[in-house]
């Protein structure tokens, strides 16, 4: 069975594993012990101790926070119950005019702000840009991911989660 050291996984996640080695990881059979190594790499990275249950973005994690399961930014800011759309608790910048769009697209033709806007979902504490939506004006904000967290741990990982009194 393929398996890598935690250091290799850490470098891979950080994008610092040398390319020839990364290529070999991509071409090889997948390592079945990846998930918990990955979570422990991320746990070392964050500055807080709530156990990470599932990463859902580059700096966003579902974690066990006391009796609750919440979506948390890497900086520690909580967006609340993981079953709700974290974006609704975020801060937002909407680029819906030429000047604001031009900041990101300095030399290309721009979308028509009457037809499309850029929405940036930002952590209100640390300012990390977590997700960008390109949508027509008035389009409902997307709830990107509703994981079957308990089913995943129980049926796929074979390690059922401890029952949580709140937050599923």
């Amino acid at each position, binding site marked *: 069975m393929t398996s890598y050291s935690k250091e290799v996984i850490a470098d*891979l*996640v950080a*994008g610092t*594993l040398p*390319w020839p080695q*990364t290529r070999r990881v*991509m*071409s090889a059979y*997948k390592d079945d012990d990846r998930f918990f*190594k*990955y979570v422990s790499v991320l746990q070392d990275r964050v500055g807080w101790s709530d156990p990470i249950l*599932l*990463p*859902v*973005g*580059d700096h966003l994690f579902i974690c066990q926070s006391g009796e609750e399961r919440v979506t948390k930014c890497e900086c520690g800011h909580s967006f609340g119950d993981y079953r709700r759309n974290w*974006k*609704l*608790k975020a*801060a*937002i*910048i*909407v680029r819906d005019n030429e000047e604001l769009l031009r*900041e*990101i*697209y*300095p*030399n*290309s*033709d*721009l*979308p*028509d702000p009457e*037809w*499309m806007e*850029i929405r*940036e979902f*930002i952590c*209100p504490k*640390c*300012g*990390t*840009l*977590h*997700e*960008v939506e*390109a*949508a*027509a*004006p*008035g*389009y*409902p904000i*997307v709830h*990107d*991911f*509703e*994981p079957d967290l308990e089913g*995943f741990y129980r049926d*796929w990982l074979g390690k059922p989660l401890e029952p949580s009194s709140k937050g599923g």
Partner: protein
Amino acid sequence: MLDKPASALRIRERLIESERLMDETGCYDGITELKLRNQDPLKFETLHTKLRAYCVSAREMARRISASPGVREVGEMVVAIYTPEGDAIALSNGIMVHVHTMSRFIKWMIRNGYEENPQIRDGDVFANNDAFIGTVQVPDVMDVMPIFHSGRLVGWAGAVCHELEAGGITPGGDVALAQERFTEGLFVCAEKVGENDELRRDYVIRCERNLRMPIYWVLDEKAKVASCIDMRESVKALIDEIGLDYWMQVSKEFIEEGRRAQLARTRQLTVPGIYRGHTFYGHVTAGKPGYQPLGDPDWLYNIPIEMEITADGKIVMDFEGTQPWGYHSMNCTPAGMDGGMFVTLTQHMNFEGLVNDGAWMATELKLPTGTWTNPDNEMVATATSWALLLPAYGVFQRLLSRSFIARGFVEEAFVGQVNSPMIEMGGQSQYGTPFGMAHFECAAAGSGALAIKDGLDTAYVGWNPESDMGNIEIWEQNMPMLYIGRSIVPNSGGAGKYRGGCSFLSTWLVSKTDHLRLVTSEHSSRVFDNGGLCGGYPAPTCQKHRAVRDSNIFDLAENRAPLAHHTGTNPYRSELEVRLEGEHVTLEGPYITAPHKTGDVFTHSYNGGGGYGDVLERDPVKTAWDVENGFLTWEAAEGIFGIVLDEDEEGFPVANLEATKRHRAGMRAKRLARAKPVSEWMAKERERVTAADFAPEVKKMYASAIRLSPRFTKDFSTFWDVDAKSTFGVE
């Protein structure tokens, strides 16, 4: 040597039985146990490798027969071997999208009584390019030949080439101007086009008289027949070696194994749950010549996708909430939607093991009737279905990628494919002869970023994982235009911690012709038809076309003055305007105008991929390299990514890490100061929604989605706390 069947094939009954067994047991053709695999796994694997080798070598051989630069240069071809019921056992590399569309074509013939008439006999060649029978678009012409052994139908060999000319209302294959089936070009509808291993002469004559450039289509037909015969003979020799009973059993086990492997891989690489995403496509044709007033000239489509990964590892994709089909060339049939799913899966999950139709069986597509994904009218045009397919499957790639990120397989996460607009042409060639061609350098767009590195520059398209733009010299042999530039477009990848791959732009001088028609397709107007992931931005994908008619380029050349080789980086004044005199044209949406002639200059830009991650985390050192090499501009490095660059002694950019840190802290503070709570934005936005204060095309989009989809209506109403129907005047 031909092998006559001993009795009626009754393959139709066999197909029905096979489907019944799948329903009953949940396993392909009732194969609940992989007996031969368990008996001798090594033999099992070796045989599949052999079949794959037959396919790969047949395709390479056939590419040498073709006259089309699309097939020879760019590799727009795929071949596969099927069971008698039409399920793919093994396939070559190439445009793998068609492995399952050919499967639909074979099954269609079986279901429609082809055994009785026109009969299925050894040496027959059947061809099809009808998307409602089983292909994606009119230029995707497929040929299949039955494989007989000991008087029994034991399989099929099939091949597809993407034709560069289909004889439609506009030249090329993607026929941008087609608004109904009847203007798409030459249709071959599951037709017997050859017997005794030879194409029928009357069929070849029909092709020669109905296409602008028949040499491409006809020689591709010969290439496909040759590859089918090659595969057929290899399979027959293999059966001689392993025995017929073994073949009939092992070919099914291969597929069942493929199905199980797909389910297992989903459980290994992803996380169960519901994933959602969307993208858009804008089409602007008002006032353009040639369009019939059959529908709205300008429209906006939303393409939402909900993907469920079930507890047993099945991937279910649901397109509910998208737009109705229309009088344009971008509709898609379920066969095309299947094909898009298949080619995406083979790239993301089936990178090892037995790749075949089993993977497709472990997935499900929900395509609402009446939408562009499943038109309830078979007269609609599908010639440019990639225009919507590529953005849609780009969304699928982002949804899958989120699951890879959640599971820890960050090296597989990929922001995905984008449209790569195609330029098609026809008229009088540089040799003074009539011609027509789709220019396939579009098969090398920028890819989306990965979760661990930048995307590929000018080296990826979703429909063919073996991307290639082809050599300039070869294209110049085939069209009356000369390249005066082919260059990377700076900042054309979506911004992010890892940027999307950049696109390129070609600049041509029209040469040695008085009549060159240029038409473009798959270019979304006014909206991005791609996205970023985890904080990355979409790539700029709503480019306009720029051209100069009656330019003074020959005078400039004679005086050895500088020419324009690209459009430059000033969006308000292009290099063409700076360097060339003549009639300057900037056109939004599909390029459909009067013919060009010698001395005109035309440019066309392809698309880059979306970005990944927060721009403020981008590596300053890599960015300096990008600026030095023209992938990013100095202005973008500082303005978008917050990276301060200095010049070294020789004038090359070097990252100033300290200044970058300070600049980024300022940008982050500015970002926080500018941002407001989503709840606040929503409260204000709700007023606009309540008043339906949107552009007419946006309003129309909402009304259409509401009419077709109860779920969209409910979601919209709940999200904004409005009555969606009354807001948009839907009964």
